């Protein structure tokens, strides 16, 4: 009898095996993607993410209701099939995909979205992601009319509401594994502190390719912790890792000489380098210098006297572009294309300075009181490109009789000076921008904001144009239509270009290295540049070697 049962079972298996195989891993090419994180993630809780390494884990493991396509910059359905924003941005209704499961098999329902939103907005949690949703006093109300629909109502309108959900990875309300149960393409399978994180393919991932095959194609992703960029580059050269998400210009050029097919320059990214003068009234600076720095003509003249094209070409080896203003041309929707192209014009700079009472005497620029125009630019030490930029600015400004000195400081000392003591004259730093929406820049443009670097934490706007900036930023954040928001933020960009509180220098290109063995890669200017479409990446034969990896 037992023998007969075994026989029937074996017969069934023989007939059903092909079907089982295709059901288990249809279209899956297998393989392990390998790359480096430059630090260990501080958290695996997607609601508490605030640094790059954790963000990478969240991106690869988290399932979101709406996903921002890093290439088209359009919003695409994720766990939500559709959504609708109403009540002037106070309310958003989602219709969810049905029949989905978390990586541990727990069913996905509207309860999970409600649980996630409640956790996100819990003031005890201090979620940096949740802060973006805080629009006013009052509770966020989450309703779940059915298992596949959710309605979230905020106490006040939230500008660009649906875009914010790209950062919200949905947690399971019922899974005993809590945040390790995920809806994204991979789940955290192993973590060796100080060494690596192993992500494995989530067999319950909802997405399928055009042929109906389950994604992701990859079996796993191994993320090694490697702070040293030289070692990361060496490992890439040896073929030990498959990609480098962010490359500097000099590393790019080095790799390009060896393997031109592996490096990718996606064009101007969102990051910018800029210079500003200290306009804080209580700063321990001589009065004459404070007066220079508060003079619009002075700032505009400095801006005109800097040869941005040379900065891009020499310091960044052509992998940067002169910056127009606070928004990079890479930000397709929000960039104000009517802004004037920054022109290098030292003669024009001298004319502007003459209007403001400065005069050139024997090759030295002096103010109306006869003081020599000289200032010190601080920047963070160890950053070769910034030191080189200042060296080039020194020569540019010497053409109009200005002496600029450079002092490099360790980062904590620099932050102390620009945020607490205000004991500096000018500072050159960069901004790493990851969000396209201008709402993320509220903490820069509002005069009361801490990151309003040229004159932070003002009790009331020091100038009329700063008051106008405040008004426009508030207006765009509460506007109900994208068109009105765009119009307001265009004006903000125009004021910044006219007043030059930040003298934007260059937008660095988004560069990455991707091994030719990776199929399906399509580097984007938005982060993550190299693996934003990790679910469709697969390892294939290296065309250069003609060998199977």
């Amino acid at each position, binding site marked *: 009898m037992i023998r007969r049962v075994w026989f029937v079972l074996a017969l069934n298996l023989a007939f059903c095996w092909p079907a089982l195989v295709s059901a288990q891993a249809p279209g899956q090419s297998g393989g392990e993607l390998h790359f480096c994180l430059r630090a260990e993630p501080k958290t695996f809780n997607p609601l508490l993410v605030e640094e790059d390494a954790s963000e990478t884990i969240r991106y690869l493991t988290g399932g979101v209701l709406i996903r921002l396509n890093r290439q088209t910059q359009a919003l695409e359905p994720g766990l939500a099939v559709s959504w609708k924003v109403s009540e002037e941005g106070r309310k958003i209704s989602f219709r969810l995909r049905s029949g989905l499961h978390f990586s541990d098999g727990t069913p996905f329902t509207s309860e999970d979205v409600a649980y996630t939103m409640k956790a996100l907005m819990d003031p005890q949690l201090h979620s940096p992601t949740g802060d973006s949703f805080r629009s006013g006093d009052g509770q966020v109300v989450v309703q779940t009319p059915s298992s596949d629909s959710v309605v979230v109502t905020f106490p006040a309108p939230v500008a660009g509401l649906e875009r914010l959900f790209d950062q919200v990875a949905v947690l399971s309300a019922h899974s005993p594994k809590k945040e390790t149960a995920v809806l994204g393409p991979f789940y955290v399978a192993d973590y060796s502190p100080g060494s690596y994180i192993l992500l494995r393919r989530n067999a319950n991932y909802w997405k399928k390719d055009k042929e109906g095959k389950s994604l992701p194609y990859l079996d796993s992703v191994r993320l090694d912790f490697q702070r040293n960029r030289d070692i990361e580059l060496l490992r890439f050269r040896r073929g030990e890792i498959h990609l480098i998400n962010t490359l500097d210009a000099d590393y790019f050029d080095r790799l390009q000489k060896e393997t031109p097919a592996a490096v990718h320059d996606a064009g101007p990214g969102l990051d910018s380098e800029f210079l500003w003068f200290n306009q804080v009234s209580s700063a321990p600076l001589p009065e004459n210098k404070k007066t220079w720095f508060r003079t619009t003509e002075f700032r505009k003249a400095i801006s005109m006297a800097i040869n941005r094209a040379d900065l891009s070409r*020499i*310091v960044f080896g052509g992998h940067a572009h002169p910056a127009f203003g606070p928004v990079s041309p890479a930000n397709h929707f929000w960039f104000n294309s009517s802004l004037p192209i920054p022109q290098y014009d030292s003669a024009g700079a001298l004319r502007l300075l003459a209007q403001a009472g400065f005069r050139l005497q024997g090759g030295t620029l002096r103010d109306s009181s006869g003081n020599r125009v000289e200032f*010190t630019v601080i920047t963070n*030490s160890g950053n070769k490109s910034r030191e080189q930029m200042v*060296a*080039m600015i020194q*020569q540019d400004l010497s053409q109009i009789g200005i002496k600029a000195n450079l002092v490099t400081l360790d980062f904590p000392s620099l932050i102390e000076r620009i945020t607490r003591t205000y004991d500096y*004259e000018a500072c050159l730093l960069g901004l790493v921008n990851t969000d396209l929406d201008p709402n993320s820049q509220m903490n820069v443009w509002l005069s009361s904001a801490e990151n309003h670097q040229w004159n932070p934490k003002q009790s009331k706007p020091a100038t009329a144009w700063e008051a106008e900036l405040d008004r426009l930023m508030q207006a765009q954040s509460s506007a109900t239509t994208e068109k009105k928001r765009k119009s307001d933020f265009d004006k903000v960009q125009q004021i910044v270009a006219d007043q030059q509180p930040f003298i934007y220098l260059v937008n660095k290109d988004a560069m990455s290295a991707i091994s030719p063995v990776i199929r399906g890669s399509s580097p984007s200017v938005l982060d993550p540049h190299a693996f934003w479409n990790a679910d469709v990446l697969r390892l294939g034969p290296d065309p250069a070697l003609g060998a199977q990896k």
Partner: protein
Amino acid sequence: MNPLQKLAASALCAIFVLMVLATFLLPTPYARQFRDIPNADPSTAHPLGTDALGRDSLSRLLYGTRVSLLLAPAAALLSTMIAALLGSIAGLLGGWFERIVLAATDLSLALPWLFLLLVVRATLPLDVPPFVSVVIAFLMMGLLGWQAPIRVICAAARGVRDSDYLLLARSSGCRPARLLLGHVAPNLRPLFYVQFFISIPLFILTEANLSILGLGVMEPMPSWGNLVRGFEDFSTLAASPWRLVPLILLVIVVMCFQLVLPSQEVTQ
């Protein structure tokens, strides 16, 4: 003086002459940027090519030689003098004074000097002229660089403390100051020289690291330290070996110092 020493002395003289006459010999100002030809190969206009910003490498090397070759030996002299004075006295006197000096040395070695340097940088005004900033950096190196030599010198002085000639000098009524200056110091002089010459390249390289803290030589002023820092991009050296000239010059200068002066002491 043997032929090798003569050669070393001649090389040093030539380098010093170049250093002194740098202002007249510079093909172009060291800070001038020829932006059309960054990272250029050697040519008649730029015999050592140009750097990443298009600045003439020969001009930067000559001016950097002046900065480093004047200030690094000055800092080495200061630290060696402090070490020689304290180490010799401690070794000669022994007892509680030696214990205090060695304890102070241990304590000093254990202190996180990096943080002290950061504090110093934080207290300095930002608008310090570049040359003053350089002098401050080397002065600090001189004042802080005595710990390693002092232990060696103290041990050597302890070795001569019970020697026959010191016993004879003591019995002749020599006072401690005369013992120190007339008998101990001359016997330890080769050691002083060695410590001095060891310190020079050390300080040149330390200066390069200090500039990371905003204390060393700042752009656009060159020094051997920041020229050597350019070797971080090691892969480019194979394609442009002339970039190694600052390092070769540094090695030559250190070797020449060690060939010339200690040997003179030995032959005395």
